[in-house]
């Protein structure tokens, strides 16, 4: 099998073209692939469709940077701070550009991805009855007392995990949101990880492997790649970073300064990491899972 380990820049360059439908932030407030998202901005990607459940600031940043054509999500903002100012500017004033919005709920975006994973046109659900979302989203319809949610097929899923091996067998833990269906529904998966480990680690627990390796096209070793979102066992959430972003992004000018300072003026994530006090966020404790014996004789 060809090696899949590469730098973030190469992974984004090769696997996320302009116009792509990209699933990211699939574990909700945790394991958000900020490093991968910032690389999309540095690469000047355009006309992307972003797919996710709730998005904690990263969607807002990609919208503000002008990368986004369409939002297919349940919620876009800043979870601990409230509104997404770039999202508002784009939706209300077409700044920096107009965006198309396909509203979902957390449940319906999950079902849309399961539909794609199962290769059916749509799946039925009990949610969304009586909600205006069935009128605004052209991919959701009501019939026979159920909603029918059309499949959403990402070209690529960007997923940050605690550890993965060189062939893309990824271990993630903590709440996983819609990560599994996003990966199964996607044409290909780009893994970014805190630790690049030997397959003796990943294969020791095949039940914790998230995805079929056959869908994983790239593995990027990017410690801290989810900052400021938390990573169970590795990093706490950087609440103040979200607070600062909310304040700075309130105006287009403030956002432009934020973008230069934290993305455009930096060559890569390693440089970004040097500019934050990561040690204050690092998890130092140890609360290890009880081992499971996979022996066969």
């Amino acid at each position: 099998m060809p090696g899949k380990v590469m730098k973030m820049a190469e992974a984004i360059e090769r696997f996320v073209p302009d116009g792509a439908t990209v699933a990211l932030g699939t574990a909700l407030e945790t394991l958000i692939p900020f490093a991968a998202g910032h690389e999309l901005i540095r690469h000047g990607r355009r006309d992307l469709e972003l797919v996710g459940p709730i998005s904690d600031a990263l969607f807002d940043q990609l919208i503000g940077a002008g990368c986004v054509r369409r939002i297919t999500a349940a919620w876009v903002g800043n979870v601990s701070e409230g509104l997404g100012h770039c999202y508002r500017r784009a939706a209300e004033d077409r700044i920096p550009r107009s965006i198309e919005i396909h509203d979902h709920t957390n449940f319906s975006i999950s079902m849309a991805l399961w539909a794609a994973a199962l290769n059916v046109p749509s799946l039925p659900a009990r949610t969304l009855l009586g909600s205006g979302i069935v009128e605004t989203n052209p991919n959701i319809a009501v019939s026979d007392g159920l909603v029918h949610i059309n499949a959403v097929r990402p070209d690529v899923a960007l997923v940050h995990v605690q550890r993965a091996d060189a062939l893309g067998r990824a271990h993630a833990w903590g709440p996983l949101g819609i990560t599994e269906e996003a990966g199964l529904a996607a044409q290909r998966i780009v893994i970014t990880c805190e630790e690049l480990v030997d397959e003796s680690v990943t294969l020791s627990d095949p039940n914790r492997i998230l995805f079929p390796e056959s869908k994983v096209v790239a593995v990027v070793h990017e410690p801290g790649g989810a900052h400021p979102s938390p990573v169970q066992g590795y990093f706490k959430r950087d609440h103040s970073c979200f607070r600062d972003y909310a304040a700075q992004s309130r105006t287009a000018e403030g956002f432009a300064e934020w973008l230069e300072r934290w993305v455009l003026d930096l060559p890569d994530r390693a440089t970004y990491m040097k500019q934050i006090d990561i040690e204050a966020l690092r998890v130092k404790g140890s609360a290890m899972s009880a081992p499971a014996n996979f022996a066969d004789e």
Partner: protein
Amino acid sequence: MSDAAYTPQELMVAVASREIRDHDLVFVGMRLPILAYAVARNNHAPHARGLFEVGLMRDRPAERYLGTMGDPPNVVGALWATRMSNVMALMAQGLVDLGFIGGAEVDRFGNLNTSYVGAPSNPEVKLPGSGGGADIAILSRRWVTLMNHERRRLVDRVSFITSPGYGDGTPGWRQKNGLLGAGPAAIVTTLCMFRFPEGGGKAYLDTIHPGHSLDEVRENTGWMVDAVGEIKTTPPPTASELEVIRKVQA
């Protein structure tokens, strides 16, 4: 206990926590509901479980501060860390007893708008969206919304229904449209608590918080507030309720 002894938010949390019954499975949202679950769990509802759409079930509050439901302290001691769709499946089976939903706007029929102010095609304000709100509003057995009491938030009719309450207020609207849950049980604000008639309809004033008046409520509410009989005063937070709220927030 005087008004000064607690904040409006602390009162809202205490009032919300009283909606949680022992043994309830509670779909817990963010911020104030997380505190409300902690208060209930530590007082009158020791067997209440919390369910989080991120993919967690717990039988006690997290031991450290949560900026979001996905923060690492919420995973430590969790009973289940799974996929969102599994958590939603439980709610779709009618197994979630109570949910909490926040919102930017609520109307007299309990409908919430967290999507658009103005035309969706060209909105004056783009709000963040449903998140799991519409799922909770439609699928949980009963739910409660918490809101700062402002005339711009408590409106006669919302311009966009993200999370349906009792729709157009006609009796049986939810059943007619196939909504699984019974609908909103209460609107808890910084001034008062509204409830709804059996089977749905228009919100009525249930209790007014200590130190506030019917006139004040009416001035700050976008619909004609009916006062049925004598309006009771909301019981203030107890010492033990406040103790938990302040411990968890710290």
